């Protein structure tokens, strides 16, 4: 995938993706990055570093909680987990996203 074909993420969507990625179970930052890349069939190429400011912001907002643990190769890693309010936030943001895209599609299919 070349540079030009990478999709630019609209503002705030990164949070939604992270929340969704973590919703299936606790993960550390690198795992989240890998998961997003795999699942979107590599269409989403997020500069990996930009994940971390987003992760910390979500941590501060209280939607994800962090805990240090051991990775699968026994290294110390910071694992992020969805909190209860984070789960609610994910639901809200997912709904909002779906509504938005449906509306935009409707307009695009207009004529």
């Amino acid at each position, binding site marked *: 995938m070349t540079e030009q074909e990478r999709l630019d993420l609209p503002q705030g969507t990164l949070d939604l993706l992270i929340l969704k990625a973590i919703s299936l179970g606790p993960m550390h930052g*690198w795992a989240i990055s890998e998961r997003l890349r795999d699942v979107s069939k590599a269409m989403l190429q997020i500069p990996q570093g930009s994940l*971390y400011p987003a992760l910390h912001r979500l941590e501060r907002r209280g939607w994800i909680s962090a805990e240090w643990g051991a990775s699968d190769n026994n290294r110390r890693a910071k694992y992020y987990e969805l*909190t209860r309010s984070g789960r609610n936030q994910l639901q809200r943001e997912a709904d909002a996203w779906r509504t938005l895209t449906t509306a935009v599609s409707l307009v695009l299919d207009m004529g």
Partner: protein
Amino acid sequence: MLRDWLSDTVSDIRYRFRAVFRRGTVERELDDELRFHLEQEARKLEATGLAPDEALRRARLAFGGVERIKDDTRDVSGVSWLETFGQDLRYAVRGLRARPAFTASVVLTLGLGIGANVAMFSIVDQLLLRVPPYLRDPGRVHRVYLTTTSRKGRDVTEGTTEYTRYLDLTRFTKTLDATAAFAERNFAIGTGEDARELPVGIVSASFWSFFDAPPAIGRYFSAREDTAPIGAPVVVLSYAYWQARYGGSPNVIGQTVQVGPAPCTIIGVAPKGFVGIADEGDPAVFIPATLYGYGVSMERSRIDYHTTYHWGWLYVLVRRKPGITTEAASADLTRAYQLSWEAERAMSPRLRTAEAARARASVEPVVRERGPNASPVAKVAVWIAGVATIVLLIACANVANLLLARALSRRREIALRLALGASRGRLLAQLLTESLTLGALGGVAGLAAAQWGGAILRALFLRDAGALDVVRDTRTLAFAGAAALMAGVLTGLVPALQAGRASLAPALKAGVREGTYQRSRTRTALLVLQGALSVLLLVGAGLFVRSLHNVRSIRLGYDVDPVLYVSPNLRGLRLPASERAQLARRLVEQARTIPDVVAAARGISVPFWSTEGTGFYVPGVDSVGSLGRFTIQMASADYFRTVGTRVLRGRGITEADRADGEPVAVVSEGMAELVWPGKDAIGKCIMLDSPSAPCQRVVGVVENIHQTSLTEIQKLQFYVPIEQLRPEEAVLFVRTHGDASLHADQVRRQLQKVMPGAGYVTVTPMRDIIDPRQRAWQLGATMFLVFGVLALVLAAVGLYSVIAYAVAQRTQEIGVRIALGAGVRDVMRLVLGEGMRVAVIGIAIGGAVALWASRWVGPMLFSVSPRDPVIYGLVAVVLLVAAALASAVPALRASRVDPNVALRSD
């Protein structure tokens, strides 16, 4: 929903807390986290066959700039602004510590300016802004003022009125929730050695309902104890008096304490800080209004204070019903006042009708100084507060100049930082932090200055009020904080803006000397501003000093410094009139035996403190009352010599004018001219009280005196022998050698021996009676002078520092000039010229503004035109001299510049 919000907020706070207080750990964790990511990515790439360092390189590439990511992550923490601020603060403090002289002078300058303002604010707050503590619903509570229009068309507004009137207003109004009467008098409280004269609050029972202040112990007096005409002898102590005199003992209830002439039972203690409505001083105790009315009436043997309208002594406090506007309340009170007026007319048919007198009432602020009869002291206080603000502005201008100069010398450093990528916004923030720090330090210094110096100011303005601890009063502290903030922002803004606009290239050029002199328009403008403001203040000072001088040199018609006023007080002892007359004569005789006493005499009225008028008739003149207001003084022999009123024609009152002698009178010059124009008053007749009274033959004419006002002369006084009319009255005047106040105590002790029973005498120097009238001018003169001089000193110091700095920067240029042949005089002229130019422009602008503002200051002056050219001229000269002195020192230094040293390349 709420639970989520709660847990989110907790999480937010916890994160920020860690970011601030566990910085080290947070940094390390972030480092670990990012390093873990890179290692994982590198491992993944190695697994595809890449070499380890190539894998790491690719991983880093995919990741992005690590430091940038770290920065971005830190920004997310929500406390980065705090860290930035902390950095700026530390940098500023370091910079200030490195230049102690600069810092000290700035802090001192700001401290003086802020301190002056804080001190004046606490005074103005005390006089004007404070609402009486515990007042319930202050928005609906008012003091009532009654206005009538005199025959000459002048409006007279009075707050004090009669008890009967108070009852009328209460009865006839419909829009008021509650009314109360209150007054304040000084009485001796206690007996024997402990007796001291203290302010006593005289209040109606309804007064207590205006406040949300349950008694500390006991209770307040009820309506039953405050029913006219005889009030119950009960008293409520103030908290302060209870603590001071009774040590806060709960056993005071039921005890008796002597308040003036009446022994009263203590029934309660007011809560801490309760002072009622303290116009003069904080009352020590409170007694019912009817008790006071009855007590005073007893001395006059006429218990009619609640049915007649002769004696006005109380203020009326009212609370509007909710929903009633102030206009509606005023209209209601006006109607009630007119009804009351008609009731008065029924008793005194010669009174004009309410319409003729245009009798009206109005509701005004409770704080007396905010009402229509504000004392001149309050007005002066507000002006002085304005003056203090001007001084602060001058101080800020000084500091701004200093900061400007410093910013100029840091131009290179600033340009470098800009070139290295600092945003102008950050630079501005840092410069502002510096000036805010200076402002804060100045604020602290100002508080200290206000605490110590303010004690003197408070003694001048608020004579009777308790000491106010500046540091513990929240409003004053808030004001000091605001002043410090304003000072910091003002002083920092100018150099910060200038620095922000600095262009980089010229500053960074190699070979440019550090801080070459640049004529700065801003700096000159600031200096001119300081000069103009100083002119303003000094003109004000000159005007007030002149006013004070004029006031002091008014011929009052009597002497002030050598005269004592003696008031005996029988303390409730009832004596028949003949014995009181004897006592009075004995007091005079005793006074005459005291060494250093030149003369002694009796009277009934005292200038400014009490005046009496009485009706009189003159054959040939229809209505004397329409000619003006006459006041009467009943005097004993030697009166005119004692008080120092000059006898112009005929004679004064002598020993020969006894009760059985011919009725005589002495009139003032003004009265003689008015009542008998063109004729000699001596030999004419006056009949007192009724046309059929015996003829008091005029035997002398004396000079006019100032009876009730310092500024307006009241010319209509007449004197009759006290022995012929009211021999039992015993107020004394005593004339001593030299300053009377030095002999006051001796006179008191000698006269005390003559007093029967528990009676005592109060001796007051006339100076203490007259001085308060002059207080407003005295204050204006003192404060304007003090602040004016302060402003001048600040401005001169500012001018000096700017010119000295300029000379230092222009050393090279001056060296060139000298090398090219300029003489000492030329160099000095160059430097002095700068200073004088600033001064002249400042004088012009300041003078113009002063002329424009003169219309507001005019009414506060006495016999001085606010555009007095002599004063303006004097101020101009003073400023020019100050500017010359300030520029002279640097000018001298400039003339001594050695061209060899100056021209050496750096």
